[in-house]
């Protein structure tokens, strides 16, 4: 048995909780260990003296009545209620807070439900600008320029460049007589 274990066994011995078998082990250890032997002897004396010293104090009692406890329990201050929980204001504030909380929870859950999982590729400003680029302008000259620009863009993408009227005037040679509806059927 180590000295540390012997110390614990001594504590058991002094509190009257040591098993007789353990007491024999403790005494066997003390026989071979002068330090533990001296401790066992002296601490037994101290423990005995403590027991004797506290013996009269263990007889002390009090005439305290439970009525003092009843009085203390009754005179305990009521839990303080803040002003926002008193009367009509309290009810109103509670209802408002409950509604607000419910809206927060519900709104949060809806937001989560419809949240798109596609990351946006362009800002709203860019989308609007692109939209108006594809729309014809209202003013006549600008419309003609816009139309020419659109046609040129299509021509560049689809095939060789097509000649179009320059300067806002149509090339007469491009029109066949059959297509000239102004002169069709008219006497020359």
């Amino acid at each position, binding site marked *: 048995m180590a000295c540390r274990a012997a110390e614990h066994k001594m504590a058991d011995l002094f509190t009257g909780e040591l098993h007789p078998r353990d007491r024999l082990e403790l005494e066997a250890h003390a026989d071979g260990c*002068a330090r533990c032997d001296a401790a066992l002897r002296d601490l037994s004396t101290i423990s005995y003296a403590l027991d004797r010293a506290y013996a009269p104090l263990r007889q*002390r009692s009090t005439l305290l*009545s439970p009525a003092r406890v*009843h009085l203390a329990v009754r005179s305990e201050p009521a839990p303080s209620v803040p002003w926002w929980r008193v009367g009509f204001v309290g009810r109103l504030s509670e209802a408002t807070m409950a509604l607000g909380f419910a809206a927060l929870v519900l709104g949060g859950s809806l937001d989560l439900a419809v949240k798109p999982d596609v990351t946006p590729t362009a800002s709203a400003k860019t989308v609007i600008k692109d939209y108006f680029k594809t729309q014809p302008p209202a003013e006549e000259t600008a419309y003609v320029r816009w139309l020419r620009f659109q046609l040129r863009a299509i021509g560049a993408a689809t095939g060789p460049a097509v000649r179009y009227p320059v300067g806002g005037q149509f090339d007469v040679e491009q029109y066949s007589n059959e297509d000239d509806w102004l002169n069709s059927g008219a006497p020359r």
Partner: protein
Amino acid sequence: MTGPAARRSAHEEDRRTDRELVYAARDGDMLAFDALFYRYRDGIFRLGLSITKDPSAAEEIAVDTFTRAHRALARLEPEGSLRPWLYRVAVNLSYNRRPRKGVILSPLEDSANDTFQSEERSPSLLAEQAEMRRMVLAAVDTLGPKHRIVVVLHYMNGLNLAEIAQVVDCPIGTVKSRLHYALRRLRAHLSAHPEFGIEPMTLLAPSARRTVAPVVEPLAGEPQ
């Protein structure tokens, strides 16, 4: 016997366990709560007295302890005994108060009964014993709070190691170490007084061990 004395007697003879009394008190039975009060009143009073050295403070501690117990009835789940829980509250309340400095609880007035009961002992012997008790209690006061409370809970209140461990909220091994350390400190302190027969921290021969006062009283018929 009628009146408060009869009621008190009935409470003191209440055979119900702590757990049953707590559940009854939780249902509004104040008589059950009073029975708990009478059961543990003196122990808590003594504990508060040994820490604060002030009887009126010790009574206030007892009242405060039971007031807290009443407040905690709803969530109190005593596993077998309520005692460690009450003592733990009382220890905390006691250490929250400033103890009276330089006051040693004198067992002189308490040993007055011994004086009348044991007339065969001489007054000088009684005075000598009282002086030795005073020296021991003064030595206990020199211990630190952690070690003193273990000594007080065992030697004053009779708690076992497991209950002390619950009160001070630490493992039993720690309680044993603290008790051993406290006793060693007391030995160092009291070895200056030859009345105790303790030689000052010397290693003595093992053969002298069984000549000191026995810890356990010998059985009848056992050879001395």
